[in-house]
């Protein structure tokens, strides 16, 4: 719902169209007053001049000063008042008097429904009016106020009472989820969606098409929260449902496949992503949807590039570019996005000049966007370009672009994680430029946003680690240690201790403990890392030697020696090559022997 009325619409900017006569017939429509002893004889205010002024104090409660409001309060018990008030709210919005009055009507409508509700009987009307109320709040941009309303709304229906109740409950959960996602609390929104899905599955069965829709939506939400495992699961389910319901190569299926490809790509499973994309592309070709085919071609190109099959990638991009240019014009942002991809590709293949020129072309399009381009699109494009500048070692340029992109996104609801991502990148840029104070500020705000969204993904751990590094540069060792500890916890949980990122955090943390004087802790961590490397990961990594040296220094300082015997590859080979006798002899002094042999 919030999509409908712009959030930026100033609440008081109701166009002065009070005198427009059109609400009049609409109201007379449901009220054949003359014929029935209608409830509407004492009906609440019609948009009379006194009421139609937007009230200066936008209180939730109707103002008791107004006489007809008192009347309305008295008559709230009337069972027909609720529907009428809701209709009034609708009319208010329709007549352009601004959503504030509509809000007032909706509040009263829900009150009326509440009073009229029979005890013990959950009133669907009440739920509905609460949903409407929440939607109006959302459209006003007051998401925080919508949350309690929806919280109440989802308590009203009882799922066991049949399809209607299930529907209302589902609807409420989904709306609540949307509201949460608008205020950036991704984890809670996903919880709500999951709940909604559960209700829907109970009501409609496992294989209903609508369940498929919800699954897909939920999968998308999971992807946004970077929780790819669950997303993949849901996406598979969606695929199954669509497979059961529609013929192969349907549009739904190809949409699912594209989502699946996105998930696979993000997980780094490029081959299966490619497979999914090719299947989707075939479906789109069969349906003759050229633009979609072009969009898929771009994705295919991305994957070819990730697989280092550059020639094929260029081919895909060019194909897409031709179609997009023909169908959308030379200056459409989608064309620009292909430019960006091409620039990236040329950068990777070392053709810097081509890459630069493509970047500039794309930038030109984004700077003067054709009408109909959303700010999100532009900022997305700018961040993509900045990524190329980042890899071209032009952090200033990248920083400028990122700042521009940030400005475009600021104040938009539901963009928190995107903004956090941009801020984290700006932080890294600042680090590269040596402006650590600014870097730390950027990271701090990014981390706050990610924390609010309940982010638990490895990405969050990585950002924490980076922030810790910035803190170290500022000699805020204590703070850095805390950050490293949190990063370690998250990364251990999400990636396991053997992941490259986790190992990096371990080594940072060890060095920090060392600097804090907690030598024992540092030694413990380093020993753990070395053990991991020796036993699981292999010691071919250049980091291994470095860590080993650090450990030996620490041990020397602490006056100890590493009691663990080194199980390096060298050792194993040596032990195999030498006779058992030497081994037996040397067991006690293994550590010393291993190097001599």
């Amino acid at each position, binding site marked *: 719902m919030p999509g409908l009325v712009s959030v930026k619409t100033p609440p008081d900017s109701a166009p002065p169209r009070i005198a427009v006569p059109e609400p009049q017939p609409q109201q007379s429509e449901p009220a054949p007053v003359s014929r029935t002893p209608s409830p509407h004889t004492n009906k609440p205010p019609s948009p009379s001049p006194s009421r139609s002024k937007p009230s200066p104090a936008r209180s939730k409660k109707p103002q008791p000063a107004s006489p007809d409001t008192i009347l309305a309060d008295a008559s709230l018990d009337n069972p027909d008042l609720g529907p009428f008030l809701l209709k009034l709210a*609708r009319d208010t919005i329709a007549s*352009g008097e601004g959503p504030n009055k509509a809000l007032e009507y909706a509040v009263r409508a829900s009150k009326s429904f509440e009073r009229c509700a029979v005890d013990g009987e959950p009133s669907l009307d009440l739920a509905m009016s609460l949903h409407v109320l929440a939607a109006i709040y959302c459209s006003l941009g007051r998401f925080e106020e919508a949350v309690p309303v929806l919280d109440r709304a989802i308590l009203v229906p009882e799922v066991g009472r049949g399809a209607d109740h299930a529907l209302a409950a589902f609807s409420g959960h989904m709306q609540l989820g*949307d509201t949460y996602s608008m205020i950036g609390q991704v984890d809670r929104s996903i919880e709500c969606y999951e709940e909604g899905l559960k209700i829907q599955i109970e009501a409609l069965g496992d294989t209903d098409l609508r369940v498929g829709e*919800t699954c897909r939506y939920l999968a998308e939400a999971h992807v946004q929260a970077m929780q790819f495992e669950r997303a993949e699961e849901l996406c598979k389910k969606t695929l199954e449902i669509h497979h059961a319901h529609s013929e192969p190569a349907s549009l739904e299926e190809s949409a699912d496949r594209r989502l699946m490809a996105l998930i696979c790509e993000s997980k780094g499973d490029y081959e299966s992503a490619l497979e999914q994309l090719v299947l989707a592309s075939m479906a789109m070709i069969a349906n003759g949807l050229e633009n979609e085919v072009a969009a898929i071609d771009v994705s295919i190109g991305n994957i070819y590039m990730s697989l280092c099959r550059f020639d094929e990638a260029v081919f895909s991009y060019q194909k897409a570019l031709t179609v997009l240019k023909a169908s959308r014009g030379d200056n459409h942002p989608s064309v620009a996005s292909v430019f960006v991809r091409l620039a990236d590709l040329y950068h990777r293949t070392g053709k810097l000049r081509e890459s630069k020129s493509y970047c500039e072309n794309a930038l030109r399009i984004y700077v003067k966007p054709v009408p109909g381009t959303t700010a999100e699109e532009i900022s997305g494009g700018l*961040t993509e370009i900045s990524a190329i500048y980042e890899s071209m070692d032009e952090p200033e340029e990248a920083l400028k672009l990122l700042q521009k992109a940030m400005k475009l996104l600021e104040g938009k609801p539901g963009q928190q994680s995107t903004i956090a991502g941009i801020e984290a990148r700006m932080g890294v840029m600042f680090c590269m430029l040596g402006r650590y104070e600014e870097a730390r500020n950027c990271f701090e705000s990014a981390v706050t946003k990610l924390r609010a969204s309940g982010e638990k993904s490895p*990405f969050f751990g990585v950002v924490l680690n980076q922030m810790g*590094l910035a803190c170290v540069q500022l000699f805020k060792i204590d703070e850095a240690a805390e950050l490293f500890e949190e990063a370690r916890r998250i990364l251990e949980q999400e990636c396991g201790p053997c992941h490259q990122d986790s190992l*990096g955090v371990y080594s940072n943390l060890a060095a920090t403990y060392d*600097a804090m004087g907690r030598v024992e802790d540092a030694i413990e961590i380093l020993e753990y890392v070395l053990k991991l490397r020796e036993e699981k990961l292999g010691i071919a990594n250049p980091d291994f030697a470095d860590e080993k040296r650090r450990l030996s220094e620490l041990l020397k300082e602490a006056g100890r020696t590493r009691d663990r015997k080194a199980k390096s590859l060298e050792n194993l080979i040596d032990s195999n090559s030498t006779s058992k006798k030497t081994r037996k002899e040397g067991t006690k002094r293994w550590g010393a022997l291993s190097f001599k042999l």
Partner: protein
Amino acid sequence: MFLPSALDNGSYFFLLIFTQHSFLSRVINNGLYFCIDHDAINIEGRWSPIGCCSYPSSSCNTFCLVGGKIVRRGERGGPISLKLPFEICHFWISSRNVKEMGKKGWFSSVKKALSPDSKEKKEQRSDKSKKKWFGKQKYPEFESTSYQPSTILPPLPPREEVKLTNAENEQNSDAYSVPVTTTVSTTAVAEPVVSLAPPTQVAVEVVRLPTITHYAGKSREEVAAIKIQTAFRGYLARRALRALRGLVRLKSLIEGSVVKRQATNTLRCMQTLSRVQSQIRSRRIRMLEENQALQRQLLLKHAKELETLRLGDEWDDSIQSKEQVEANLLSKHEATMRRERALAYAFSHQKNGKNTTKSVNPMFMDPSNPTWGWSWLERWMAARPWESRGMTDKDMQDDHASVKSASRSMSAGEINKSYAHYLLNSDKQSPIASEKPSHPGFRSPSTPSRPASKVARKLKPAASPRGSRGPDDDTKSMVSVQSTQFRRHSIAGSSVRDDESLDSSPAVPSYMVPTKSARAKSRLQSPAEKNGITEKDSPPESAKKRLSFPASPARPRRHSGPPRVDSSIITENKTTNIGVTPLVGGIAVAAAAYAGRYSIQAWQAFKARPPTARLQKFYEGGFQSTMTKREAALILGVRETTPKDKIREAHRRVMVANHPDAGGSHYLASKINEAKEMMLGRTKGTGSAF
């Protein structure tokens, strides 16, 4: 306190400060500033406090490590004494630019230096003996006492005792001073950072023993206390030194390649993050647009099913006349259309939002997401049995109920519609929208549909068998007239939109759509005489409109528009009239309703047609078995009314192009001849020439 004079420009040193003042850390964090008595030195870089010691009852609770490089030093030379802007307990200074000092050696030296016993004795010796302590290292130690005002110039009169603990303060005497309170020792830190320092070795020559201490006259307890004290200081110093070295190691790690790799990794992660976010968003927007079209179909199908169901249900028990049933059907159809239009509104809102580069947040509960949420609620409301029944047959017996249900269905279902309406109204402010003829009452009186709907309204009571409900119906239709006025525009927009998302080959940028329909409408105002012109001067546009015309061509024919409207005009009429159709349907009620319901099939059929079909007027290929005059004219490329000499001329031209002698076909030539004959009125279509 003093710095050795050999600490010259460019040399590095660390300063370890023990203090009981909490503000020390603050001062140091804000930048350590050294006031120098004799010399000015600037010190570059600063390190933060690194820890606390937990010496019970000690007033010394913080030790700070500061360090840096001496950037500039005055020329006087000689030992430097530092004046700190705060009170300190102890300094421990290490200048770091001396290499080669082994750890063990250093430690032992520190130990020695800190152990009072050895010191006691050796302090009384000369410099020489000092050198002996540090025999191997050859780095003398510098010791001094710092007092609370902490500005002490050598030689130092041993006046006061350093306040370490309260207990020890009692033991203060002039004759005694703790020797090792400040230690300036040149050490090497065996770390890579050392390589950063200039490799010049600093030989600290000036070793001053500021006080001559002796234990004479001290009690054993005092001596013990002193020993303990010094031992503790030694411990602290070691710990601090270790921390310092750790810090150096940390620095080296931070500047190493591992961290660089981590930074790039972070970058990559964040790039992935933003790419995934933007892809999901664009995907949702796209799905939204796709769903729009799909949903329209779905809704229509749904409504159709509902109606057939209804029809079957009520067939026997209904006491209504056929007209009534049909009227019900019509009203239901109207409701469906309305619902459909709600989506169209939502959609047109979305387009407008895009135009003004507002943010679009595709959400599940978004009204323009047809799968759930509002449209779902709406469908739910529409599908609730009690309600639709109330809509259909109960409304005759129970007006109250119908009112109720109507208002209820309105309330939930149409609120988004009204949002859309609101937005449409607010479109006025946007520059693009201002040229749209979309406002109610702005242009609609001049469109042909208005009179038609008026007629419909007039006719409707007559068509309805129940005269008593006349006024009611009248208001109803008035309402719908009013609503259709603004609906018209958005339907025009949305039908174009439709083909965009279904064909998904929008040849025209989306922002063009409203203006296009506007143009179409303005052309419509002078329909009859401009037919030819429209056809001629805007072929690409008409082609476009063709695509945007989803319904069957059967429908507009019912419309009492100007005769022989050519197809592009029909399209335009269609786009304008589609909203009014139910009212036009007042004339041909059932037909309109059914046409509306089957328009989807027609749309599908239309989609399946080959693209050439759009030029209906042109000859499609193949000859008719009997040549007509029209065919003949087509063959010759003239009009049917062309004068004879022109026909001859055209015949010659075509014949030259197709002459058998020049490689043309005999059959074609014969056809061309036949066409000429036909046009000249000589034959009456003899069938084939063969």
